[in-house]
């Protein structure tokens, strides 16, 4: 019965060790999916490579369907799974900053570390920038705290907000994913560029 980190009585070091192995698996999968290439990631914004959309949407669907199936068979208690609290201001402002950083740097934080692990120099510079941003955020936090914590919505879930059951929401998301995959493929054809992955 899960979630293991709450219901099992694992010592803290074991929880952290499990997290380390999951992290290694995640980093390995990112690298294998080609996410250590900033050109591939930036391709999402220009439309010539939509792997990011496909991989992350597929991951979301697998996690959603998987967790619900585990819950259905009584192996996971979804009510105990932590829901990130929703701070509307922070999400919008942070989303814009992250998007800008993503398109300028060619990475998001996780893929940046993945690229760093295979020795990409641009990823090193990108992460220095990211750490500088984190430092700046921490130092200016007292001044921006009010904006940051504003419009707090609590542990909000989209299915509850839409007033539909979790299963119906999963169905809607799957249909949206299939539609977006189709759209992404169209975009890839329209904005295609010469194959460059072999040079990277």
């Amino acid at each position, binding site marked *: 019965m899960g979630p293991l980190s*709450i219901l099992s*009585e694992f010592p803290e070091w074991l929880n952290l060790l499990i997290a380390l192995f999951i992290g290694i698996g995640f980093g390995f999968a990112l690298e294998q999916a080609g996410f250590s290439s900033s050109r591939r990631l930036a391709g999402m914004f220009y439309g010539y490579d939509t792997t990011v959309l496909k991989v992350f949407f597929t991951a979301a669907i697998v996690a959603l369907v998987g967790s619900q199936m585990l819950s259905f068979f009584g192996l996971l*208690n*979804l009510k105990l799974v932590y829901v990130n609290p929703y701070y509307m201001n922070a999400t919008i402002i942070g989303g814009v900053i992250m998007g800008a950083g993503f398109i300028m740097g060619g990475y998001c934080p996780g893929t940046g570390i993945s690229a760093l692990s295979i020795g990409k120099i641009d990823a090193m510079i990108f992460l220095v920038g990211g750490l500088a941003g984190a430092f700046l955020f921490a130092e200016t936090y007292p001044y921006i705290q009010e904006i940051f914590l504003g419009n707090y919505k609590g542990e909000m879930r989209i299915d509850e907000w839409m007033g539909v059951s979790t*299963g119906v929401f999963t169905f809607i998301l*799957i249909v949206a*994913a299939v539609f977006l995959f189709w759209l992404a493929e169209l975009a890839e054809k329209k904005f295609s560029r010469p194959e460059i992955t072999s040079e990277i």
Partner: protein
Amino acid sequence: MNTRIKFSILLIGVGIIMAFLPFNTARSFQLKPDELLSKTVSDDIYFSVDQVARFINNEDTTFQLIDVRSAEQFKVCNIPGSINIPFNDFSNPKWEIYLNQKGLKNIYYGNGDQKASYAWTISTGLNYGNNFVMKGGLNEWYKTVMLSQFEGENITPRENALFENRFNARKTFTQINSLPDSLKTHYFNAKHLQTSKLDGGCE
């Protein structure tokens, strides 16, 4: 047929199944009625008030006393070390962290046996482990532990041990319940578990 079309059909098929699956089954009864009934009729589900008194005197940390009476009744008096999960609020998911754990024995008590037995049935039906009832509830506790006294001229070692056990539990009970309300609140809050929180972003 194109692989992409096959993949899309498969995905939508899974989506349709998900849309019709009944969820939240994690909180529905998982034991079959006959299994539950056979457990109910067993005497192994009960602890006597003397046993509970011994747990308290020994500061035994392998059990968790759960008072299923209302919060007001709990504030007036309760067995030392117990937590309050009012029966009216028993199905609230926030209590699950206390009820569904493997390390501790949950011993339910109310004024009598009725509500504690209901609580036992629900938590056992939900397949939470280690559920017990304190036989007779607080009424029995009062009669046996609080009113216990030494009678007669001779006392056997066994009777003496029993009396001492009750006497010590009574002393603890009186001490804890005579605390001022503010201290009691601090004490109860300290006993409440904090749900582990995970933090982190998507990538």
